[in-house]
């Protein structure tokens, strides 16, 4: 601020030479620095290229279009060994994203419950939550992942699979469960679900505004649930309620039909969720405790119900403390998902390593992996920063 201010004065005076002009010097330094960084990057790039050339190692990103020749156990998009390395990496990215997204959602839920339980007046709940936090955050995440992988691998084989209910199996091949056969009618069910969510959000928003304006409370939980569940249900019923279950059956080596979560996915998900959940629990606890006790006592004196206090007084204020550090937890969870490589989950690093090895282009393969993680992390940061701006204290 001061610099710009003085610069203004300088310019107005029109004094002395350009070299003594603060504004000019400010810009010049920055331009010089930027140029130096670009030059350095260029030199490093040249250097790497020259050395690779000298060692006769192939360079460039042409390999992304070559046929990969290897298969991947778990794919969210169509892929086989005739596809390119580029597509193989895309499969890896999708797998990373899916485990990270599930992990973030579950860790948030687990962390919030545990964080609230830690400050709960219920002795058992608070002791259990403390135990969870202390055990999980003090064990390296890599051990969590390996521990769960070995637990799941030691489940019975498909032939002796645990079957808690008809069509649901738990075996060392993963968690296998029935799903409805695909049906064109389901498209509309999804559309109805999306519409329901939008409506529920709208209703919630309106109810909040209404409460702020008139002070009258409108219960939103049940109407919202009704909309979100009711609309898709109605869409399904209107189309004649088509439903055929695809039930898994043991045929040959493995289960056919139904859907399954692989042991690697489950182990990685549980590992990173438990680990990160413990940190989030601490963040949530800190957030709740940051709200002055006086406010809660005052609310109680006014006769406000306990749940209300948590929802409308404690939590909105706690969120301001909770959101920024939670962003870092989301980022580290996403990056920790790369530990899947240890247990054979085909995430980006796993597929990237195979690509690296089959093509021998280590620099390029690592560059691709780094760029993707950077992209994912920056996207999460951006999203969380926007959310933070919404919940932050608004200076009026």
């Amino acid at each position, binding site marked *: 601020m*001061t*610099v710009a201010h003085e610069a203004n004065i300088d310019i107005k005076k029109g004094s002395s030479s350009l070299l003594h002009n603060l504004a000019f010097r400010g810009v010049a*330094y920055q331009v*010089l*620095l930027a140029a*130096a*960084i670009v*030059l*350095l990057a260029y*030199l490093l790039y*040249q*250097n*790497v290229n*020259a*050395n*690779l050339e*000298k*060692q*006769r*190692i*192939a360079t460039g990103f042409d390999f992304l279009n070559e046929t990969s*020749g*290897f*298969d*991947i*156990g778990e794919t969210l998009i169509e892929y*086989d*060994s*005739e596809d390119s390395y580029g597509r193989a990496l895309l499969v890896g990215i999708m797998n990373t994203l899916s485990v990270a997204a599930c992990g973030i959602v579950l860790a948030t839920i687990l962390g919030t419950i545990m964080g609230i339980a830690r400050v709960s007046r219920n002795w058992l709940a608070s002791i259990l939550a403390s135990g969870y936090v202390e055990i999980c955050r003090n064990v390296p995440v890599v051990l969590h992942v390996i521990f769960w992988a*070995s637990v799941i*691998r*030691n489940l019975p*084989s498909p032939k002796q699979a645990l079957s808690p209910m008809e069509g649901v199996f738990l075996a*060392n*091949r993963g968690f296998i469960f029935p799903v409805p056969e695909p049906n064109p009618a389901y498209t509309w069910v999804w559309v109805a679900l999306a519409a329901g969510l939008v409506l529920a959000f709208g209703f919630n928003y309106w109810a909040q505004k209404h409460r702020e304006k008139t002070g009258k409370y409108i219960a939103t939980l049940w109407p919202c649930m009704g909309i979100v569940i009711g609309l898709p249900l109605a869409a399904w019923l209107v189309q004649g309620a088509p439903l055929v279950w695809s039930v898994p059956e043991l*045929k*040959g*080596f*493995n289960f*056919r039909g139904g859907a399954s979560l692989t*042991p*690697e996915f489950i182990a990685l998900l549980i590992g990173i969720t438990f680990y990160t959940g413990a940190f989030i629990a601490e963040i949530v606890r800190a957030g709740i405790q940051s709200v002055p006790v006086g406010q809660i006592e005052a609310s109680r004196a006014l006769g406000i119900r306990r749940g209300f206090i948590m929802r409308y007084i404690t939590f909105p204020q706690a969120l301001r403390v909770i959101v920024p550090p939670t962003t870092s937890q989301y980022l580290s969870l996403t990056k920790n998902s790369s530990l899947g*490589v*240890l*247990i*054979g989950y*085909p995430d980006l690093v*796993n597929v990237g*390593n*195979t690509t*690296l*090895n*089959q*093509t*021998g*282009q*280590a620099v390029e393969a690592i560059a691709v992996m780094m760029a993707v993680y950077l992209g994912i992390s920056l996207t999460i940061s951006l999203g969380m920063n926007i959310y933070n701006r919404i919940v932050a204290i608004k200076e009026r």
Partner: protein
Amino acid sequence: MKRIQKFSMLTVLASVAAFALQPAAPVQAEEGPTVKKVKERGEVLCGVHQGRYGFATADSEGRYKGLDVDYCRAVAAAVLGDSEKVKYIPVSSVTRFPALQSGEIDMLSRTTTVTLTRDSSLGLNFGPPTFYTGTGFMVRKAAGVEKVEDMGGATVCVVPGSTTEKNIAALFRSKNMQYTPVVIENQKEMVGAYFSGRCDVMAMDQAGLPGHRQFDAKTPDDHIILEGVFSKEPLAIGVRQGDDQWYDIIKWVTYATFNAEEMGVSKENVDEMKNANNPDIKRMLGTSGDLGKKLGLDNDWAYRVVKQVGNYKEIYDNNFGANSPLKLERGLNNLWINGGLMYGFPMK
């Protein structure tokens, strides 16, 4: 405040400029031949398997043993005069090539299949194959699998970045069968995953399977290794391109072990053979001629290889054959005169 800002900015600029203006030093400076570095260091840095019976395993005292290990020792014996002057560096299927390319190891003796891509775009050279094998499969007896065609729908454990990984993709595709690969980089984890039942099938170089069955299975008899070999896997020692002397040494140390067997020179009789009435043997063992000088070594190099490590038969028998628990037939790994593929080029 202003002053500090300016100062720090200048420092940054200066350091950046200093960095940028330095001559672009190559990642690896003009290195002398690998031999020079090895001699200065007094040790051969040899990349080996983290643990595959017959090829490279470390015992409880950390001593390495195996066929790949013996070739590290043979090179150390030839270059440094002592087969014990080796530093073993365990590398995974994924880290092995970067380790060699970056100069972390001098030679890669780790069940590595020679392929065109590896030879060309990885910037490597490969010596003569020290072992011939092919992709093999281990399955549980109870699964009732007798041939490859019975494996449709199976879950297959395999290490990533291996030729095996590509072979099974091609094999299952050509037979129009589905399978699910489970790809684990850590060898121990991968083998553990198969024996714990995560996979129906374990795929690797066939010569590696008997060892795992014998030492890692709870009941070895519960597992069978499918008949037949499903790909060509010539395993050889890899070195970086651009150091022809080092490459030549690797090549001729390997041939020396084949030729020693062919000429009947062994650990036991090598001292007598030095003076045998056979010009070829004398030339190889350095009693006459100057083969060593041509490689940039002394004339006793091949003598030391045989004396300290042995000929190919001895190396094979100690790790795979009669003197090992595996008792594998030599098959393709026999000398060419006995119907195998091991053919030492003339040492003249």
